[in-house]
């Protein structure tokens, strides 16, 4: 097995390999969420903290926490999951606040079982890019200019940013370039987790000079020359 082999791609069925579908944990999370949730009067009755309102988010919150366990979802991921659900009201639904009686039937129904690539593509790499932080944090004199230039060199496409001495501008250029790479699917990364790792590797290398991070990023860049979709990289840790 070679250093640049994509193990995950090899395990995929031919259809997935052909269509290059995005592999995302968000689909797995959605699959684990219930298809129908019956709404009870307790869910609706106003409490000290809520005034007679019920959102998809408030019902799904506990379920998402249970199925996604330690993984924290971004605001956009949360919204995407919530958009898969809608309330269904059967009969004349009424709630009597005084007696706490709910008549009629209200159910939260899952409308969609999987996310399309068009929905997932805008989320690619976003968590990693966010992890890099604000470019203004690198505006100080001790900014690791050489390491920033190395990253720019690997990412390509922002040569002009390598000329100056401003760490702030270099980090801004790195982030812009990453946004471009993911938006245009230039590197053909088709795994959400892997796409997010890119930003974390860059952050790790810039801040601490950890060579494992640089090696991982470089491997990924080399793999882009294979003209194949990329689902995994043999990571150095």
């Amino acid at each position, binding site marked *: 097995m070679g250093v640049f082999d994509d193990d995950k791609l090899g395990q995929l069925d031919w259809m997935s390999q052909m269509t290059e579908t995005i592999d995302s944990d968000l689909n797995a999370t959605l699959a684990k969420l219930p298809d129908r949730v019956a709404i009870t009067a307790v869910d*609706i009755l*106003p*409490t*000290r903290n809520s*005034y*007679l*309102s*019920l*959102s*998809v988010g408030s019902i799904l919150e506990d379920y998402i926490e249970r199925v996604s366990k330690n993984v924290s979802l971004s605001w956009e991921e949360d919204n995407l999951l919530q958009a898969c*659900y*809608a*309330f*269904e*009201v059967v009969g*004349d*639904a*009424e*709630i*009597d*606040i*005084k007696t706490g009686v709910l008549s*009629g039937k*209200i159910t939260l129904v899952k409308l969609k079982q999987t996310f399309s690539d068009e929905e997932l593509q805008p989320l690619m790499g976003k968590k990693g890019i966010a992890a890099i932080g604000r470019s203004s944090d690198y505006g100080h004199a001790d900014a690791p200019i050489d390491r920033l230039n190395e990253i720019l060199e690997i990412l390509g496409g922002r040569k002009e940013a390598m000329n100056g001495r401003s760490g702030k501008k270099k980090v801004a250029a790195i982030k812009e370039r990453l946004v471009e790479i993911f938006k245009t699917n230039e590197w053909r990364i088709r795994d959400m987790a892997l796409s997010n790792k890119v930003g974390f590797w860059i952050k790790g290398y810039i801040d601490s000079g950890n060579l494992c991070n640089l090696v991982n990023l470089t491997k990924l860049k080399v793999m882009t020359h294979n003209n194949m979709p990329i689902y995994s990289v043999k990571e150095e840790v």
Partner: protein
Amino acid sequence: MSELNDIASTLGTSEPIFKITAERDGQLNFKVKQQYVPTKTGDPVQALIVEAWRESLDVYTKRFEKHINIESAYSTIVDTVQKVFVNCSPLKNPKQSTLYKWLNGMPLRYNGPLSPGFIALYRYIVNCNIQGTGNKNNPHAKNVIAILELMKEKYEV
């Protein structure tokens, strides 16, 4: 109980029963099943109290509670009487008169000895439709000013 409070006590609230419907965006909408709307009886003072009526759902008592700002309604009554005096007084500069100064300087506290008089004057002003006029020869306006003079004489400290 004074008059404004008496009127306020006749107004009710909605029953806390809500109709639930699903919106097009998939969210739920809650609407009071039978919204209580206080009706105006034709009495201008009652109309003021009706306009000041609000209700809100109290999550502790689990029912709608009414909120009526009686002080604000009373303040409107006194303001209206003042404006009639300023607009309809035969004086060249009514704001320099002792009557205006007395009117202007009195506490706007409801339930004072003058409250019943001002409420009755307000009712008379609105019923005779002189609150918006500047007609100095209007007999009703003259009556209001005369009554105010008498009230001043009686209640001025």
